[in-house]
């Protein structure tokens, strides 16, 4: 770098424009340019073929592979979530280290291969949280703050949380239904009696189906395993209970938008 800098300075001070330390732009037929490709990286001086695997080593490797396979199939293994698997393995500092892992698998989904297809039904399950319910634990050997995790009480909390949210939705829908019914009966007094009646019945039927659906979902959630709820919980983390209500409150939606954002930021800070 230093050399180049000096050269440029020399050119400026010396013969003037168009000349760079003796080199001119004029055509020179005799000039010989080096076009030879650069040497390859030198060969390793000490490369030897390793000795073949002995029977003892073969047994050890087989043992190891079998064990690893079993662990990977087991409930404790968690699949990698690396954003870019081809990124260099070397990282500098914690920030960069943490950055290479995706926190939200859905946001980083590969649109071409990420969509589940029929042929993937036998693929091993992707797990980002170990499934602790599948393994016996000896609770007394763990610190007390982990007990709830081991017992799945934490999952219970999430479930209760979800149930509460569902109840709220249900109540909201029920009130909507009541309002609609009221409107339907009011409209029934008008001229097109039969048609309006049909519409009212339609609306109430739709609500019923919707309600049933919601019930079904809530019921399924109860039966689902903890890990399934993880995603739901992740979403719920961002919106507290009140926010959930606000989202469905169309009138208050835009007014409280700013507050929502602030809340989120606060939540983020708590996490980090």
């Amino acid at each position, binding site marked *: 770098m230093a050399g180049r800098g000096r050269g440029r300075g020399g050119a400026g001070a010396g013969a003037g424009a168009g000349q760079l330390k003796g080199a001119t732009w004029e055509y020179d037929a005799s000039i010989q340019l080096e076009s030879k490709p650069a040497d390859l990286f030198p060969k390793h001086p000490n490369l030897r073929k390793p000795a073949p695997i002995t029977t003892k080593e073969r047994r050890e490797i087989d043992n190891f592979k079998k064990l690893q396979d079993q662990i990977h199939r087991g409930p*404790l293994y968690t699949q990698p979530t690396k954003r870019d698997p081809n990124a260099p393995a070397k990282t500098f500092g914690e920030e960069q280290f943490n950055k290479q892992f995706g926190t939200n698998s859905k946001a980083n989904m590969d649109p071409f291969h990420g969509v589940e297809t029929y042929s993937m039904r036998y693929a091993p399950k992707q797990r980002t949280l170990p499934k602790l319910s599948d393994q016996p634990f000896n609770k007394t050997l763990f610190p007390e703050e982990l007990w709830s995790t081991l017992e799945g009480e934490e999952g219970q909390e999430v479930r209760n949380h979800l149930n509460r949210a569902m109840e709220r939705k249900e109540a909201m829908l029920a009130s909507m239904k009541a309002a609609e019914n009221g409107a339907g009966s009011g409209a029934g007094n008008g001229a097109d009696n039969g048609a309006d009646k049909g519409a009212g019945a339609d609306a109430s039927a739709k609500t019923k189906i919707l309600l049933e659906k919601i019930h079904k979902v809530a019921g399924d959630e109860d039966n689902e395993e903890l890990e399934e709820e993880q995603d739901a919980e992740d979403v719920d983390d961002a919106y507290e209970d009140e926010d959930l209500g606000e989202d469905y409150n169309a009138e208050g939606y835009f007014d409280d938008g700013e507050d929502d954002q602030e809340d989120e930021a606060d939540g983020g800070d708590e996490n980090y």
Partner: protein
Amino acid sequence: MAPSKNAVELMALLVDEAYGELTSRIFTILLRRGRLPIRLLSMHTLLTPRQLRHGLAVLIQQGLVYHNLEVDTGTTFYEANDDAAYGLARAGKIMDVAENRFGPAARDVVHKLFLLGHCSVSDLVTAYESKNKDHANGNAEGSSTITNDVNGQSVSPVDSIGQLHSVLIQLLDSGFVEPVVRSMFHSPEDTHSMIERQILQESFGGSTKGAKQKDELKLKIKNRMNAIRAEREWKGNAKKRPLNGEHINGINGTNKRRRLSNGSSTVSGDPLIEDDGSRLDPTLVIHINYEKCNVALRNEALVAFAKERIGEITSLIFAQGLAILEKKIPRCRINPSIDKVVDLPDGPGFTTKELTTVLSKAVNPGTGIGKASSGEVNTRALERLESRKHKSEEVKIEGDVSMGDGPDEEPTINGHTHLSDIEDDDDPFEEGDKSNPAKRRKLVTFQAESSGDRENRLELVKKHLMLLATDDAKFLRRTGNNGYGEWTCDFETLVAKMQESEVDALLLENFGISGHRLARMLRRLGKLDEKTMVDTAKLKPKDIRTKLAEMQMAGVIDIQEVPRDSNRTTNRTIFLWFFDEARAATMVTEHTYKAMSRILQRLDIERRRAHDVLALTKRSDVRDFDPEVYLDANQLNDFRAIDAKIDNLLCQIGRLDGLIGLFQEF
């Protein structure tokens, strides 16, 4: 001692390889940052507390993380257990050792224990019950089920719960598996500080005064820690039949050896360990004891070393001797903060008679040693007892001797050692052997069951032991005359010798004959200046200078400046070259750690490249079948290629692990 940068990298990769990303991320931060509570962990890993709690539960279950509740603040701190993390690389070896000692059933139990982490006996029983049921189901559904089992057996080697108990008792007796108590989950430092606080409160009223009280405190802490460790030890089962373990051990040893030569035909039909009716407490929590496993691995390494230096038969006898000692050695290196460093006159020992009785009949001590005429061998010196008092001198003399006969025993390179055939061992005794074929013939044919057979066998075994004792590596040391000679093994000096030979092999490989010669010269003669080296090494000054510079760049040797006056001018300064063995050893360790992590990274890349094929074999509908059944020709070729690559990489990890063991743990 905090693990080095390379070690941290390796351990993170090992945990990642075994238990996946979440655990590895937590473990890495714990290794880098030391002990942390969940709150701070969350800050450094950017993981949610929920994820952290799950990850930590897995890590604790597998014994990879210590935890400690600080009563004053009410926070629980977590700390990485690096020994256990490194143990993950050894899983294959440990399972193999278990199989060698106690048969395939024990391997299977150890496998399960690796899988489950620490677990109670009842949990293990449940795991086996469900597994057997699975097998039954599998057989009922389709008779053509081909399991992808290592030995090609479709049924697990553990048939009954009774057998499981017997296997567990044996493993507990031998120390490969140990009971888990809560204090094990405290890191050594935490335990130490806790005991210190307790003792300070109890005996010193809060603080110590003066050096005398401090020493007293140290001693008390040591005693208490020793007591805690003694508490942990397996006390044995009252219902156990006496002499059971020893007997079976012997039989299994021979079975293993025979199997080795036959190939992989296992004797799954006849379980070697039978249900002897004893049962363990179902609430007993057990896990694998890495310390004891290291002792077994060290013995294997020593036997391989003996085989390389002397011969197969002698090494087999040595192996038997070490097996006797193994029962008395709970760990390879004593911990100065726990163990009382008493200058014991002799370590645990065994007599020739003991050894001969347990030695399997398949080993013929008559072979392997040639006979020289009595004039040529001076056994008088060997009969003399050596005491440990002169150990420090011994070490020095030992170095001299090895210098003397250096050239005729070229150390073999790591990895190639296994190849060295026993037949062309250039052992001096073998030379004598070949010159006297008639006598050798006589020895070999000495098989008839005569009345003096036992006596002769004793004599022959004793000769092998003497051969081991006279070797430069000092495999054994004679401590008494009872029972045709008492022997002990000085592991420290022996391991030091092994390390030296390994470093020598590496130097020879990396710096050629002259570099190797210079290093050994420096090792023997201490610090030297260049001129002396020219004379002693009989090399050209120019060659020496370039070689020394090369080795200094690699960090093997270094230079010390000794100024002759206060000006420190170059021409008034003496430059002394020196070779530091401890430094060379740490360098080897660091390089090995690095190489191992590179291999693991390479493994990951290779797997990703062959992802298409590997994903096929991992499908849940076919993963229990042999890939040959369901893959088409092209896929099968691809699979075989990647499988061979993975095998080679894992094999290399195993070999490098041998080096780590030698320089770090043994």
